[in-house]
């Protein structure tokens, strides 16, 4: 039987040797050789044309591969089912735009990076992608500048401050899809019963939290903190921006380990340590926090503008109001905006680039047409990214206006910087390390060092 093991090991060796051999950059190698694949980015090889593309070439029809992220329970139905007044986005688009077919996919946020990255690795990127990040795709030369496909009138319709968030080297690489703004929500009845005012500074936040803990014998969490792997960067933003710090300095360079940042995060950690927050901030997601708020187990939290809808859906009956996110004494906090984007990928194998660009333009026109866009944005309670939608949205829900004001003063994540992913995961890891007892200063120093290398 030893022989068998020896053979097993040698089989392994064979496999690895074969791999090494094929990994050598031989210019005359087969189709999968890495060198050629890298080169094929720039040139225009029509290799591995997929079935749809073959169909495209033969007829006049253009098929666009579209990936949309799953925002809410209705997203899938709206795009593909019958959630758009009995029809759906794809059917309506195709009937209004003959000659353009959509292969539209609604992918959950959990899987979307996997799906997109794998397709990119195989030169099979979607034509249109709706996602939050864009810098990596732009830096790898995969995206088309917006000016190449976006009609002028539509382009001018976007909020200029939003467009700015998608600029790298003076080129706009993506257009905003929708946004949400975050503010502090509090349970009005609860604060009244305890007899405290709405906190505006960190010190007041601590006082109010202590009062709530005392009054309810710890049955109610005064404050919610989410430092999970999906959302921890938001916590970083809340507490560093509220202390005059942030991800970047005034020159736009990474500065994650400033004294302001350390103080801010230490404040948040202090709240957790004193028992003012939900007990497991590293694994309790935004859903959990919102659920606690909806059930009257949490008095205050920072949440997106959809919270009232969420609470209503969950059958909660909370008398809630919003206020500015508390900041440190003498500092001004800023509300936090989160924006997602729509971008178009290059496809050098497309037979008629102009027609393709035009088709993408048609898609955008259709998508942002108030008739469709207003339904999409309001369905899941988001905030719009175009001026033309504002009027209809305000008409349908007066509370929108206040949120639009908040949105106008929002700060956004520096997602246009190339290292954003690393920073995002880095600050989350630092927070979580600190939660298990590490020194936040040391952790942030480490991250900063990595970034300036």
């Amino acid at each position, binding site marked *: *039987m*030893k022989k*068998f*093991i020896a053979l*097993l*090991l040698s089989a*392994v060796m064979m*496999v*690895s040797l*074969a*791999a*090494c051999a*094929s*990994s*050598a*950059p031989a210019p005359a190698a087969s189709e*999968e050789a*890495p*060198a050629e*694949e*890298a080169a094929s*980015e720039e040139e225009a090889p029509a290799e591995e044309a997929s079935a749809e593309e073959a169909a495209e070439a033969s007829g006049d029809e253009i098929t666009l591969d579209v990936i949309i992220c799953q925002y809410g329970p209705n997203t899938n139905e709206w795009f593909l089912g019958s959630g758009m007044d009995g029809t759906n986005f794809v059917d309506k688009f195709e009937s209004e735009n003959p000659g353009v077919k959509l292969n539209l996919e609604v992918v959950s946020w959990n899987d979307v*990076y*996997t799906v*997109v*990255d*794998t397709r*990119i*690795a195989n030169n099979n990127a979607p034509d249109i992608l709706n996602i939050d990040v864009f810098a*990596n*795709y732009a*830096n*790898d030369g*995969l995206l088309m500048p917006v000016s190449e496909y976006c009609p002028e009138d539509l382009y001018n319709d976007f909020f200029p401050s939003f467009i700015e968030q998608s600029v790298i080297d003076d080129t706009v690489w993506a257009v905003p899809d929708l946004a949400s703004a975050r503010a502090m929500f509090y349970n009005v009845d609860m604060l009244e019963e305890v007899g405290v005012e709405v906190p505006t500074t960190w010190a007041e936040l601590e006082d109010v939290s202590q009062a709530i803990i005392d009054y309810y014998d710890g049955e109610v969490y005064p404050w919610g903190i989410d*430092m*999970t*792997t*999906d959302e921890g960067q938001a916590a970083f933003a809340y507490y560093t921006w509220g202390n005059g710090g942030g991800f970047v300095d005034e020159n736009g360079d990474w500065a994650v380990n400033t004294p302001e940042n350390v103080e801010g995060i230490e404040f948040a950690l202090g709240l957790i340590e004193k028992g003012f927050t*939900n*007990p*497991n901030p*590293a*694994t309790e997601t935004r859903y*959990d926090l919102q*659920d*606690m708020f909806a*059930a009257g*187990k949490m008095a205050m939290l920072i949440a997106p503008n959809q919270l009232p809808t969420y609470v209503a859906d969950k059958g909660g009956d909370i008398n809630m109001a919003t206020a500015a996110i508390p900041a440190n004494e003498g500092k001004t906090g800023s509300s936090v905006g989160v924006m997602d984007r729509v971008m178009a990928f290059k496809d050098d194998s497309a037979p008629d680039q102009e027609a393709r660009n035009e088709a993408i333009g048609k898609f955008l026109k259709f998508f942002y047409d108030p008739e469709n866009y207003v339904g999409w944005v309001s369905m899941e309670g988001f905030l719009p990214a175009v001026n033309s939608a504002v009027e209809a949205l305000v008409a349908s829900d007066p509370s929108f206006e206040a949120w639009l004001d908040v949105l106008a003063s929002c700060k956004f994540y520096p997602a246009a910087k*190339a290292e954003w*992913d*690393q920073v995002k*995961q880095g600050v*989350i*890891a*630092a927070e*979580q*390390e600190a*939660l*298990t007892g590490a020194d936040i200063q040391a952790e942030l120093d*480490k991250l900063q060092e990595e970034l300036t290398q």
Partner: protein
Amino acid sequence: MNRTKWEPYVWLLPSIILVAVFVIFPILIVFRLSFSEISKSGVIGGFIGFQNYVDAINLPAFTTVMKNTFWWVVSVVGLSTVIGFIIALVLNQAFPGRKIARSILILPWATSLVIQASVWNYIIKYEYGNLNNILLNLGIISRAINWRSSYQIEFVWECFVGIFVTIPFVTFCVLSGLQSIDPSLYEAATVDGAGFWSKLKNVTLPLVKPSLTVSTVLNIIYVFNSFPIVYTMTKGAPANKTDTMITYLYMLSFYERKKGPATALSVIGFLILCVCASVYMIGVMRNEEAA
């Protein structure tokens, strides 16, 4: 019997083609990728030698993750094998309701890991978890318990779910092995005056061993590569302290976008598995030869 020299290969051919095309080919690509530069968004660049491997080993969480992976594999494979074996012995007895018991025991396997992990995640929630609900309403506890108060405990829960879903695999492997034991062997042993333990040691174990060996080797591989449980329950939080190798390299690849080191890490994991599986098989077979 007359068999031509080619005949065995003809019998093997479909299987060889299937595995070679659909498994070995992607594996070769992974090996190649581990020596290539890969951009953050996944664009594959040129050959960069062992750089990815160097980066992978220098990752700060490398040691933590390796330790976790070790405990994950050892506890899940070890405990599920022991418990699964006991259950198989019980289920091999004739008793009223055996068919129902068998159908129940296959359940954890019949649901995808993502769902199993989601359900347990929901069950052990502090705030609205079903476990607290049931225990409170049955009067077993009088205050809700925070079932996941530290990351060590969360990791134990992940191992529990891992064991829970792995037991049916072991049970049914052992059961199929037990079925092939001739009952007359037991009768002979009983006549010889052998008790329960002696029959277990001298009849059952040796005869079940082949199927147990294979199932354990495969189990080690499957558990090592198991992804959804840890990913669904904690995503490795806090700070990779509950990550196993496979979830860590996933996070590395798709969250931190260090795709090169992630690929190298997957090859390192493969090599570790090869060594472990070989060591295990050598160990088992040496014992067998000695026996």
